[in-house]
């Protein structure tokens, strides 16, 4: 009913499970609640019975961090199996309005942005938050962003372009940069310009990730088709798709195929052309085509790589660039997950679980005496800000803060 092929390589990977429990040792949710019996039970073990019967509701307590898939020594796609199981429940049993809303970040952005002052007031008032908690199940204390009055796309027109670009990329900004944090996109475009990279802005919409993680696969597939229509022309013109949200870019790289089961040449084409911003820049540095941008940042920074970035399998490229800054006191979090799981930690029944998971990030920030936390995915930043009381910034904001003030590169 979810439209996912029954026997693709992800589904078949369950057969490789030797029940070694390594996935359970890395799962951040398991120690935080008894409601989730662990990725092994929910994933490869329950998978054997899934064709026949109703899903176990506990799978909804997976927050989708993907640690299980990465740690599995046998190549079982545990997280993907769990995401599909959730979609199966949704397809059979429907979905609360709350999840439909949270799955549509772009719609929320389009509605909220023009009314930013009013909408933000609503997001801040305890009365309205209590109402949303009771009526919708969005926790009253959950970290939610503030709308920006001017979208990134509007700001983009005023940003500088390199005079003699060495190469050109297409920028995928994602919903949060466009509606909530245009400063992230602005910093990215300015940094790219400084590196001699021209930026094009293809027409684009939400990649569908929030729908995928809320189990709405039919709608997610429509979003994916639209994204393919909008981005493939740029890909075929030879432009890399560069993104600042490591969650959106992971969706383009992997989730259309591995979660939604869209194993088409088009999704492969898009996946192969999509880069995280720092992954893209780092590859140019490795190839000797770019000097790492230099600058000074006299701040104590904790870098927390988001779960989705880890699933890219490219390491922590942003940390490589931050580490090269002069004066920076940089530490990596070494913590598996901040807990938020996209919209997971915003939900009333899961808020406390997400907070417990994220506590380790806050402890690490305190230990390091961090003044600011850097993290490449938006919902993680909001969660970390909420957990630590510290500003959480996209690494490109910090890098641009350091590089921008250093004047033009030769």
């Amino acid at each position, binding site marked *: 009913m979810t439209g996912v092929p029954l026997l693709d390589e992800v589904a078949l990977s369950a057969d490789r499970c030797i029940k070694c429990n390594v996935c359970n*040792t890395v799962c951040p949710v*398991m120690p935080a609640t008894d409601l989730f019996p662990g990725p092994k039970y929910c994933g490869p073990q329950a998978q054997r019975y899934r064709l026949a019967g109703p899903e176990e509701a506990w799978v909804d307590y997976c927050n989708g961090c993907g640690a299980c898939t990465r*740690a599995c020594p046998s190549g079982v796609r545990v997280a993907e199996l769990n995401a599909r199981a959730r979609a199966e429940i949704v397809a059979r049993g429907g979905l609360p309005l709350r999840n439909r809303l949270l799955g549509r970040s772009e719609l929320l952005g389009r509605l909220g942005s023009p009314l930013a002052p009013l909408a933000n007031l609503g997001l801040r008032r305890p009365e309205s938050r209590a109402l949303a908690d009771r009526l919708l199940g969005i926790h009253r204390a959950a970290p939610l962003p503030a709308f920006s009055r001017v979208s990134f796309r509007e700001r983009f027109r005023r940003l500088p372009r390199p005079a003699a670009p060495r190469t050109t990329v297409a920028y995928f900004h994602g919903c949060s940069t466009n509606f909530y944090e245009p400063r992230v996109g602005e910093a990215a475009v300015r940094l790219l310009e400084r590196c001699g990279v021209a930026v094009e802005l293809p027409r684009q919409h939400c990649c569908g990730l929030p729908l995928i993680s809320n189990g709405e696969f039919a709608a997610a597939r429509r979003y994916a088709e639209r994204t393919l229509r909008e981005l493939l022309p740029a890909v075929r013109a030879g432009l890399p798709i560069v993104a600042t949200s490591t969650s959106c870019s992971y969706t*383009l790289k992997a989730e259309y195929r591995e979660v939604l089961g869209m194993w088409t040449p088009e999704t492969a084409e898009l996946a192969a052309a999509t880069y995280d911003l720092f992954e893209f820049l780092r590859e140019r540095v490795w190839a000797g085509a770019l000097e790492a941008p230099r600058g000074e940042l006299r701040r104590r920074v904790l870098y927390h790589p988001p779960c989705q970035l880890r*699933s890219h*399998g*490219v390491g922590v490229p942003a940390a490589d660039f931050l580490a090269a800054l002069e004066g920076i006191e940089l530490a990596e979090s070494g913590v598996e997950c901040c807990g938020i799981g996209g919209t997971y930690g915003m939900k009333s029944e899961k808020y406390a679980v997400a907070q417990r998971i994220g506590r380790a990030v806050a402890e690490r920030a305190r230990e390091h005496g961090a003044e600011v936390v850097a993290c490449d995915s938006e919902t993680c930043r909001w969660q970390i800000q909420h957990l630590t009381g510290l500003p959480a910034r996209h690494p490109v904001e910090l890098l641009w803060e350091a590089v921008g003030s250093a004047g033009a590169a030769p």
Partner: protein
Amino acid sequence: MPSPRPPYDVVVVGLGLAGLTAALAAASRGARVLALGKGYGTTHFRSGTIDVLGYLEGGAVRSPRPALSALAAARPEHPYARLGGRVEEALSFLRDAARGGGVELQGGLDEAQLVATTAGTLRPTCLAPTSLLGAWDGARVLAVGLQGFRDFDPELFAATLPPVAARLGLEVAVRPARLSLAPLLRRHLDGLGLARLLDRPAFRHQLAEALRPLARGCTLVALPAVLGLEAATAAALATELGPAVELPTLPPSVPGIRLQRALERALRERGGRVQVGAEVRLECAAGRARALELEAAGRRLRMPLRSVVLATGGMASGGLRLEPSGAVVEPAADLPVAQPPGPPGRWFRERFLGSCDQAIDLAGVRADACMRPLDAEGRVVIENLFVAGGLLAGAERSLERSADGIACASGYVAGLEAAAVEATA
């Protein structure tokens, strides 16, 4: 053509004991290190002890040092024949690194340590974490099973251990007990869940209180090895309760995870990076490993290399593969593999476990004293690539109980050698 710039001095492939030791050794020389692997593995399956040489010629080894020399002299193809002189240095390095991460390993090459298993046997090892070592001789032991945890049966343990110990000249008396505590009455209870519960001081205290009356008259309390994922938990319980010993259980092995986490923490503290979930291939040309091809989301990533340590493990870990054609191959770099002796029909014995050899175990990559891979003529095939651990040919690890010692010593040497490789244009 711009020149590629390797982002790391040393890349270590494999996150088992060999890989972690190699990464730590390289980092100790100031190298920028990346350790990556396709997942966690052997450390989570093994009991957190370091087996160097447990059995030789079918007999238990009481003193590893002379046994190592005897083995090296008798078996020139054995990894210890090339590593023998470095084993002690490597163990001492590992002990320091583990201590840095909070795990205290006891023992050395002079005398084997005995570790009790949940089945009630005593097996030899070389280094063991403090919590796995008990004063067995003359002990009056309380063996405690925990309600809901099926991987330890105190009655079986109580029936088996005394006669086993007697054969070794030790006098041990065991009284079995079962304990039921409210927090244990959960739907899913495994060693991991128990360990997490025990990391909480309140539950630890509750357990100690419940055990104290039962343990009256006993000199040692034996519990399944679930005393915390935190390195300090077992000692904290012993402080409240008196002498306690952990018995290693089925995977996931809590002491194994503790050791892995201690080593990973020590590596991060030395500036090393760890990346989990990466399958790799090496691009080699003209006797050098040029680049690492990483299976990343959506595409392959090509990382220029300065030097690399391959610690991808043996057959069970995927570091070696038996092809349908009957050839054992090394899939990551296509290194030359010394095939098992005899015809393929004789590579396997009917009994998987037991005291007979499996010739297939002898397959692997041959290496020189620097752990550089060799071809059939004994020539170094790749200058800046080093091998360690389960990949190495010539050992019968399960018969000898030598896997950890080989991993540690070869990892140590490989890591140091890799760190010493000069950058080339």
